[in-house]
Structures are given as structure tokens and as C-alpha cells.
């Protein structure tokens, strides 16, 4: 752990771009007193979080602490039972139209990629823009190619996901989410199913994306990534947000005992 995940050019690029983003919408994600249960099991307990537009949040915590469940609530892959989640001004309720509107603005990248194996890389990327955004096919394909170039695999556009390596698949998955031109991107441990030599290629793409001013919520154990790009690090344990701090403070001066213990464990090896 602890290797610097970025080089000089990317860092400076990131700074100029985030400065250009002057009109940040405050509170693009607002979570207020949110609880969730699986049956009798109280998974998420009184979560409160406000994320401004362009902010980059890293969520970490031990296994089973509810990190996945939490970010999956933000695009309603999971339902919460109490409290409020407001995304881009729309409250998530049972209303299917609201859910679909929110999902259009929120991209998600999964641990296991979840590409559609029966479609080519390009078709994976164009599917939602064409059918949901009603973008003309030509335009959608051109835009998909741009994103594939951005994740550095335009030459694989006509292959099927099954023919790509894990790192390539995950980059396609990122491109596919970006093709919807989302305002927010959610990442659920995007690198933990990858071989070590592929982790960097995915992280590089994510760092580049962070530099472009995208609002990002990442569940990850890549502390190097957290140090490089995060505006805030959130530590969850037992379904609660235990600590929330800018990365420098979080890593050098954690306040809570549980955070300290977690950091010791994760930085030990």
C-alpha cells in the first residue's frame, strides 16, 4: 500500500479543472437520518451525509460494515426504510419515475463489472444512451468511442466482454456508465476483483475522472487512491458513519479508536 497512484501531470490537470468548476451545486446528494434493515437486521443506522457537486468521497471500513448497501441505496438498488435520500433535488421514494430519473443521473461501477456478455463493448456503451436518452445511434456510437478512448481501449470496441481481461472489462464498465453523462458516479470496490497488475490501469482511469470534476463516491480499500483524489474520507463500521475527515487528517490524525484500529490493520501489510 501507500504507493503514489498518480504522476505530476495528472495532479496539475486535476487542479486546474476543479478550479474551473466554480458553480458547484451544494448538496447534490443529501442523506438525512437514513436507516435500513434487512428483515430484523439493522444494516444502516442513522446515516447523514451531504455531498456537493464535484466532491470526491471515499468510503472505507471493515467487511460487512454496510458500505455497499449504503451506496446502493443512493441509486435505489436497495430500499431504505427510514429517513431521506435526495439526489439532484429528487427524493427517492417508491415512485418508479423518480427512481428512473435518478438512475439516469447516477452511474454505477460494480466490483464484478456486470457487463452484458451478449453485447459487444460498443453496444454495452450505447445501449442506455440509445434506449433511455433516445440519442441517435450514430451520435451515441461516436460519443461511446470518445469514452472508450478516454479509458484507453478504443481498439476493443467490437469485442465481446468475455474476450477482455478483468482490467479492460472494468474500464469498459466505467465507460458504459459515463456514456449516460451522469452527474454522479458510484464505485463499489471497483478494483477488488482484479489481479494486482490490472489495478493500476483502472485506478488511473478513476484518477483522471476525478480530475475532470465528476462527483464521485467510491467504496475502496485503495488508500493511495484515497490520499490522491479524495476530498473527504468516510469510515463506516457496524452500519454507522464513525468518522469523516479530509484524507490528510484521516490518515495522520484519526479521532476515533475504531478508525485507528482499522487503519493499523489495513496499513500494516
Amino acid at each position, binding site marked *: 500500500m501507500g504507493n503514489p497512484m498518480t504522476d505530476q501531470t495528472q495532479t496539475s490537470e486535476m487542479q486546474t479543472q476543479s478550479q474551473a468548476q466554480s458553480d458547484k451545486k451544494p448538496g447534490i446528494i443529501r442523506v438525512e437520518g437514513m436507516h435500513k434493515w434487512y428483515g430484523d437486521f439493522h444494516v444502516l443506522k442513522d446515516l447523514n451525509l451531504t455531498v456537493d457537486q464535484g466532491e470526491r468521497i471515499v468510503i472505507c471500513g471493515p467487511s460487512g460494515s454496510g458500505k455497499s448497501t449504503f451506496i446502493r441505496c443512493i441509486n435505489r438498488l436497495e430500499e431504505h426504510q427510514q429517513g431521506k435520500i435526495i439526489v439532484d433535488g429528487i427524493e427517492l421514494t417508491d415512485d418508479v419515475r423518480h427512481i428512473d430519473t435518478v*438512475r439516469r443521473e447516477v452511474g454505477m461501477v460494480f466490483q464484478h463489472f456486470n457487463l452484458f456478455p451478449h453485447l459487444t463493448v460498443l453496444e454495452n456503451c450505447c*445501449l442506455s444512451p440509445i434506449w433511455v436518452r433516445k440519442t441517435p445511434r450514430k451520435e451515441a456510437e461516436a460519443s461511446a468511442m470518445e469514452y472508450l478512448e478516454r479509458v484507453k481501449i478504443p481498439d476493443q470496441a467490437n469485442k465481446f466482454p468475455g474476450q477482455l481481461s478483468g482490467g479492460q472489462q472494468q474500464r469498459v464498465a466505467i465507460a458504459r456508465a459515463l456514456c449516460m453523462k451522469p452527474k454522479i458516479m458510484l464505485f463499489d470496490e471497483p478494483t477488488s476483483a482484479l489481479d494486482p497488475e490490472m489495478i493500476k490501469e483502472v485506478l488511473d482511469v478513476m484518477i483522471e475522472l476525478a480530475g475532470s470534476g465528476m462527483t464521485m463516491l467510491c467504496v475502496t480499500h485503495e488508500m493511495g487512491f484515497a490520499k490522491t483524489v479524495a476530498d473527504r474520507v468516510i469510515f463506516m463500521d457496524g452500519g454507522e458513519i464513525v468518522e469523516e475527515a479530509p484524507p490528510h487528517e484521516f490518515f495522520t490524525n484519526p479521532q476515533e479508536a475504531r478508525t485507528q484500529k482499522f487503519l493499523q490493520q489495513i496499513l500494516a501489510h
Partner: protein
Amino acid sequence: MTESTMKAPKKALRPVKWMRENLFSGWFNTVLTLGVAYMLVTSVGPLLNWFFLDANFVGADASDCTGAGACWLFISQRLNFFIYGFYPDELQWRVDAMFLLLAVSFVPQFIERFPGRKWLGLFGIFGLPVVGYFLIPGGAFGLEEVQSSKWGGLMLTLILAYIGIVASLPIGILLALGRRSEMPIIRGICVVFIEVWRAVPLITVLFMASVMLPLFLPEGVNFEKLARALIGITLWQSAYMAEVIRGGLQAIPRGQYEAADALGLGYWRKMGLVILPQALKMVIPGIVNTFISLFKDTTLVLIIGLFDILGTVQSTVTDPAWQNVAIEGYVFVAFCFWVFCFGISRYSQNLERKLDTGHKT
């Protein structure tokens, strides 16, 4: 040699080596090989004689069948009846036209590079039934009407199987989706429908359709027997189809549903664009299996007095004008069924190969 120009070594195919390895690889295999070879030699001769060498192919009636072999004359003389049933001779061009359209839509499906074969296939599935609906019964566009009681033979078999297959697939898909729906009422209806129809033998369904259904229908509403049989077969078949497809739906990993949801596709696009294409592809063998059994099960309509190809042959072999031709008749029927079922099976293998996009994520 650089790596890029290196080719995988080819496996040499040498008949003698192959035989030594596969047929004579030990005393037991040698004995088996010789035994099978002996049986082939002794049985092929007589069969060949019966089928071809001693068989009668030309002539006008039963008296021309003299040889010890098969009387194929019987088939060729009554072929018209076996194919069209009682459909009037001068109107049979209408049926021929349908056969032709059927061939034009589906034979190209076996030819990889046939131009526009996708459109022909779509026409075969959606257009053909519409054309047939007007052409075969007539009664519109100045076509003379032919009562469905006059239809029979191969034509009737194909109509029953075709409608059964084409209609049961979409109904089956809807039932399968309904059974996995989160809405309790829809799920309940689908479960009851599937379980009721699946638990009833097709014969019973046909009996009910022909005898009992009219009792429930209001006075004056009178479906033809054929239409009732078709509805019965289709609904019965849909229940089976639904379960086959449900198997495919269940095999799709949850991540696929979630990815589609996260992209905001919504229920119908998620199912239509992401889940069903994968699920259906996965259960092609099961679907085809169901198609093939339906194709053969259509012979059961004999029981409610419809004369499909088996029915027409059956009624002819008992005709006093022709004697001892039962074997020829049944061989002919078996051959007809085999041709169509084998065709369906080959096509499905083609399709599976074409749709294979490598291992799953």
C-alpha cells in the same frame, strides 16, 4: 520464427490410425466392432432390398404392387390426400403457395451469407401466419371459402405445430416474467395458469376444447373445432414454455439485473434488451425440445376427429383397395416427422453457435 507468424499445429487425420485407436484398441473393442459390422452387413442387405431393390415405384393401383419389397406406389398414389386432406384439388395452389413461402422464409436460415435472411425469418414468424390466415380458409379477397373440416394431412400438421410454436413462445415469455414478478396478483395468476395447464394431459385439453368448451360458450358463439384445438394446444404449450424460460431467467446472475437497473433502463427494456436475450439463448435446447415434442404431439388431434398426416395415413391403410401397406404408410409418416424435427434441431444448433459470444462475465 517470430511469435506472430507461428500457427497452431494441425491435427493430422489418418484413417488407419484413427481406426486402430478407436475401433480396435483392445480385444473387447475389436469384438464389438466385428459384431456390429456383422449385424450391419446382414441387416442392410434385406433393408435395402425392401426399401429400394424389390420395391414398386410405378403403377396405378394396388395390383401393380407385386414385388416382395415396399409398395411406395401407395404413397405416391395417395400423396395428395396425405398432404392436403380433403382440400379441393383446384384450390390446392393456395396451400402450395404457403409451403413455398415457408421454404423461402426458413431454408435461407441455414445459409450463412444469404442476403436479407433475417428479414425472411421475421416474415416467416410474423407475416406467414397473417398470409395463411387469409389464404388457406379463403372467404375474403374473392377467394373461395374452404371449411376447416376439409383441411388435413401434412398441411394440418404444419398449421397446428406452426401456430402452436409461434404463439406459445411470446405467451410463455410473458407467463415466465409474470411468475417472477414482484406484484403478487400477477404472480398468482401466472402460477395458477401454469400449474393448471401443465398438470393436464394434452389429450384431455383437446377433449375439453372440442366437447366441453362449446357448453360454456354463449348461444350463437361457435368456434370451429380446429380453432378450439389450436387455442387448447397453444395455452397448454405456453405453460411448458414458461417453465423452460423461467429456468433461463433464474440462471442470469443478479449483477445483470442490477447493472441494467443502474443504467436506468426500466423494467421492460431491462428484460427485453438485457435479460431475455441472455436467458433465451441459454435455454435454446429446452425451447427446441419443447417445439419438437409439440410437433409430434399434434398427432393427438386424431382423437377429436381432425385428420393430420398420421390420421390421413391411418385411414388409408385400412382402405380395402390397398392391402398390407401399413408399414409403408408409417415409414412415410415417420420420415415426414423426422425431416421437420431434424430441421428444427439443426437450425437450433446453428443458432446456438452463432449466438455464442464467449464465456460469461
